[in-house]
């Protein structure tokens, strides 16, 4: 049964140094508050699994939290590239960054296999591309019925999944709606999970398009209002587009980046309010 606890305690309970941590949210519900807590706690050596590394990933990488990135597409959409990501990968600052890249279809199906208790998934992909032969998570497989050659991708079972959702009830059942992404699969594929929520309510009233993660399938729940900012939470907040645009300049320079993290993360409380 999911335990409702404070953000700092929840992060400490669910994520350990060296863990493989899935932090998902496809433009929507990106778990920034939890990510900032990882930075505040000085976590290290994480393998970050994220379909679409973005500003959050950039902040984690630039803060030295991440030693390996498992991903599909990395950038600041509509703005440009991720400067901290590039700096870590190309110059090893602040710590070297290893990459394990995928197509989105490949990585989502790794999550599906992981959530399904299977060691691999099958898809049409990888053939003829440069990732073929380069990545360990892909191998060819032959259909036992048709002889057709397809792609097998190894299941991914992270140690921890960290996601943001709209709300939970007092028993810890979690409700997510809007663009639900791959969060259900990430949580179900992982050994432990932390869900930050905008609020805890008495009852989860049904919402069109909502998915529910039963409390017994989640490890910890922590209240983090605005916990997706600058991403958004349908029904609660809007995407802070200006933030994403401004991030380009903030993150371009190591010192500017460190100053931003210092003000907005290290010396901020769990609500992201700078000291």
């Amino acid at each position, binding site marked *: 049964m999911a335990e409702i606890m404070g953000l700092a305690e929840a992060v400490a309970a669910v994520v350990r140094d060296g863990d493989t941590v899935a932090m998902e949210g*496809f*433009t*929507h519900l990106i778990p920034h508050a939890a990510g900032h807590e990882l930075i505040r706690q000085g976590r290290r050596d994480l393998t970050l699994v994220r*379909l*679409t590394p973005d500003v959050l990933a950039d902040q984690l990488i630039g803060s030295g939290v991440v030693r390996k990135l498992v*991903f*599909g*597409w*990395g*950038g600041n*959409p*509509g*703005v440009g*590239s991720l400067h901290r*990501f*590039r700096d870590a*990968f*190309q110059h090893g600052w602040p710590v070297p960054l290893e990459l394990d*890249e*995928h*197509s*989105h*279809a490949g990585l*989502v*199906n790794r*999550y*599906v296999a992981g959530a399904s208790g299977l060691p691999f998934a099958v*898809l*049409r*992909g*990888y*053939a*003829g*591309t*440069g*990732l073929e032969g*380069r990545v360990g998570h892909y191998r060819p497989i032959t259909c036992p019925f048709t002889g*057709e*050659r*397809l792609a097998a991708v190894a299941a991914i079972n992270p140690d921890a999944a960290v996601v943001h959702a709209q709300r939970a009830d007092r028993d810890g059942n979690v409700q997510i709606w*809007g*663009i*639900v*992404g*791959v969060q*259900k*699969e990430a949580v179900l594929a992982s050994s432990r999970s932390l869900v930050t929520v905008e609020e805890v309510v008495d009852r989860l009233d049904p919402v069109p*398009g909502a*998915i529910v993660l039963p409390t017994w399938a989640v490890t910890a729940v922590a209240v983090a209002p605005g916990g997706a900012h600058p991403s*958004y939470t*349908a029904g609660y907040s*809007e*995407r802070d*587009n*200006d933030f*994403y*645009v401004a991030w380009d300049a903030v993150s371009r320079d190591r010192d500017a980046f460190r100053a931003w993290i210092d003000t907005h993360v290290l010396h901020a409380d769990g609500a992201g309010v700078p000291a």
Partner: protein
Amino acid sequence: MTATYTASEMMAVAASRALADRQVCFVGIGLPSTACNLARATHAPHLVLIYESGCIGAKPTRLPLSIGDGELADTSDTVVPVPEIFNYWLQAGRIDIGFLGAAQIDRRGNLNSTVIGDYDHPAVRLPGAGGAPEIASAAREVYVMIRQSPRTFVDRLDFRTSVGFGDGPGDRERLGLRGGGPKKVITDLGILEPDPETAELVLTHLHPGVEVDAARDATGWDLRIAPDLARTEPPDAGELAQLRRLEATQPTQKKGDA
């Protein structure tokens, strides 16, 4: 009297015209979204827009800044989980037109969005594959929207992220790629289409004001020119008005983003 318009606007209009009503399009942000929404606002009101965030049948009133914009979800016929959008809707061959961009393209329409330079020690690390390889593989037709210059139109990709026609005729079949591959490459200079026999991109249209030599100079291989090379019709007043109305809905979007 000809209106003035940017190269990006010509690209958006050319792509929009290439869409037929009721087609099902797999769209990213930037020029593809612009083109699709322009088509929806003009000749293709029932165009179906699918975004890899899970939005099926999105009908945004504003150009989206991201593929997971709230308005895409709010206006969609339905929003499905991301595994489903890839497995049931893209992989199963339900997409008529898949839009792609890239940092590099070669003469067979193969694309690079992974690295410039060596894979392990690249000069530039690019965003990576995202949905592109499977869009390239599965869409009935792929439309590529990309600026044309010797930097982008290269003789040999630094990395093959997505397969166009691979190494030549029959290669898609050999690799088991069930979609038709790139059928139009829309650039700021003109339009290229594949020669069905050689699977090589051929320049079929030049945009207004662009001459053949400019296209050749912008291409890192010996560019083939169609014998019946045509001139793209410039954007008409109606198209431009709709396009600019759309562009005005998203002032923060970099113009000409592809």
